[in-house]
């Protein structure tokens, strides 16, 4: 660890992993509820579990992004963090607010929660991913701004690199686009617009800047390749991302009441969105092939390459699969969407956070890399999680295709619930793969506790 203040990252990383575990447990509960409808009824209804699953996802990714940037920015800027104390205070505020919110979801009926938290003052609740009560939303804004402030102040007083600029831009976008969640118009068409401006512009816009910057950082560190090369790639990738991603928002306007030309604009531009993801993959492999050093942290290299591949598969390929209007006409809102949502979120954002943790955590704990045994365990957990997530996506894709056929294309269409019965085998398989994923995650957590000589191997 070059700078003392980088140590705050550790807190964030630990919280991220803890919440990740929580997310998966709720995913498994829901996965079972899909096939055993009254599982845990009435203690944890499906809609509540869903909210907890997705919100924990967002929150742990945010913890991951914050921790990662507190680690990365001092090193890039070659100076201590502007205010480590602020980072620690923010951490506790965020953690407590997050915990209280999740408890609120679990213990209080959503409608009462809305009433108590002033949803009738400013109506923001009830939309997927943005279910948080008003005080939590305000809290998120404050936390995000304090994070942004801390990072930008650090960048300003130190060296300015492409990586830190791109990362700051991504964070700025994250904070700004979240503001759309405060506006919830009654008009359903407008409501959808604002919702997508958060959700889509996050994952297919500004978060990709964060993704690109972090991947570039780790790759520079583990390969020793020239910064200049990396920086140009980074700029090309993010420009392409923003151009295709912003207009590509149109792929959500197909059927919500927006003008029909969006079927063309959305289809064409979003069809180009996989290009920057593909470039990221090429870039990552190219860097590793041209590496100038053998970094002892083999696991981190694996995570980084894995991120670039899985992000391309989940976002690029699975996104492309249903992004053209004539296809989306049939697949909209089916299990195919869930398949893509899972593989993309995992492949791009879960993995990039885990990549950063894998690279930074050993250093934060005072060594260049973990002991060999720990690394092997970590790599096992990579493969278990990645492969099982890939299978989850495959099963859901299968479910989605059958669903589209039986429910929407067949000459004698079946009703929604009748179709769900037909495809329960896929849901069982998904739950099985989910259990493997959990094992992978537990193994991952276990790898932090493996003791031994930390040395470079091979």
């Amino acid at each position, binding site marked *: 660890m070059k700078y003392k203040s980088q140590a705050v990252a550790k807190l964030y990383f630990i919280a991220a992993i803890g919440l990740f575990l929580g997310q998966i447990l709720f995913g498994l509960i829901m996965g079972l509820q899909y096939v055993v409808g009254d599982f845990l009824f009435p203690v944890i209804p499906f809609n509540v579990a869903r909210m907890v699953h997705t919100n924990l996802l967002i929150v742990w990714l945010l913890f991951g992004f914050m921790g990662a940037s507190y680690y990365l920015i001092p090193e890039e800027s070659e100076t201590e963090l502007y205010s480590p104390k602020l980072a620690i205070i923010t951490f506790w505020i965020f953690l407590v607010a997050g915990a209280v919110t999740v408890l609120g979801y679990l213990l209080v009926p959503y409608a009462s929660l809305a009433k108590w938290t002033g949803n009738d003052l400013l109506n923001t609740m009830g939309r997927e991913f943005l279910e948080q009560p008003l005080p939590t939303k305000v809290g998120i804004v404050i936390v995000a701004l304090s994070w942004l402030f801390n990072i930008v102040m650090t960048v300003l007083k130190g060296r300015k690199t492409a990586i830190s600029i791109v990362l700051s831009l991504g964070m700025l976008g994250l904070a700004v686009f979240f503001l759309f969640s405060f506006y919830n118009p009654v008009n359903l068409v407008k409501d959808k617009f604002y919702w997508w401006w958060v959700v889509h512009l996050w994952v297919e816009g500004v978060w990709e800047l964060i993704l690109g910057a972090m991947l570039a950082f780790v790759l520079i560190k583990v390969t020793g390749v020239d910064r*200049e*090369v990396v920086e140009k790639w980074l700029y*090309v990738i993010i*420009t*392409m991302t923003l151009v295709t991603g912003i207009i590509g928002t149109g792929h959500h306007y197909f059927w919500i009441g927006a003008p*029909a030309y969006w079927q*063309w604009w959305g289809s*064409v*531009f979003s069809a*180009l969105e996989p290009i920057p993801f593909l470039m990221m993959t090429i870039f990552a492999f190219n860097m590793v092939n041209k590496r100038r050093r053998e970094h002892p942290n083999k696991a981190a290299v694996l995570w980084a390459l894995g991120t670039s591949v899985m992000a391309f598969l989940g976002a690029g390929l699975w996104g492309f699969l249903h992004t053209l209007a004539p296809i989306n006409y049939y697949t909209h809102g089916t299990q195919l969407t869930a398949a893509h949502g899972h593989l993309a979120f995992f492949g791009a954002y879960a993995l990039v956070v885990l990549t950063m943790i894998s690279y930074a955590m050993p250093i934060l704990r005072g060594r260049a890399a973990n002991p060999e045994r720990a690394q092997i365990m970590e790599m096992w957990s990579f493969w278990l999680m990645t492969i099982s997530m890939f299978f989850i996506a495959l099963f859901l894709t299968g479910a989605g295709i059958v669903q589209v056929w039986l429910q929407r294309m067949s000459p004698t269409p079946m009703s929604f619930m009748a179709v769900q019965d037909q495809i329960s085998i896929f849901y069982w398989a998904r739950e099985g793969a989910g259990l493997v994923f959990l094992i992978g995650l537990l193994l991952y957590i276990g790898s932090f506790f493996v003791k031994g000589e930390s040395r470079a191997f091979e």
Partner: protein
Amino acid sequence: MPPAININNQDDLPGDFAIWIFIFAEMLAFGVLFVAYAFSRAQDVELFNASQLTLSRISGAINTLVLITSSYFVVQGVAAIKRGLNKQCAHWLTGAFILGGVFVVIKMVEFHAKFAADITMSTNNFYMFYLSLTFFHFMHVLMGMVILAMIIMKAKRGGYSTQDYVGVETGASFWHMVDFLWIILFPLVYIIR
């Protein structure tokens, strides 16, 4: 592995390789739209023909000449900088820049006429494509002008040399792409019926 790998290596494409990634991506996007236009037209030939006749072919043609000429100026600008002549390069590029401005003005008059006639992207499929394609191209002209302006300023300061003129070639390549696309767009949308 594709050549895109060596983004920084001297490639034999004129200009920085990064710009070519964009050029190819843009060509892909336009290509898809061109073909989509053609097939949508096949669905409703009469509507497309009738709407197409309302376009101002003369301004389309003038704009084609304008862009071709500006591209020619850019070629001269590159030739000048290869001989180390910063000032001449700046002059040629300024010419190209001004012609870009002419294109923009003509195009805006055209857009204005259409909007004044209450034509929007929702009027019909032909206008949807006409407005999308030309607007999208229009944005590229503006982008190209920004790039040209930056190069002109650097050239005026004597910022390039016979050794180092990649920047000029990069901008030139982008500008030629804008020309290239218009050369296909013009007959497709304005003329062929």
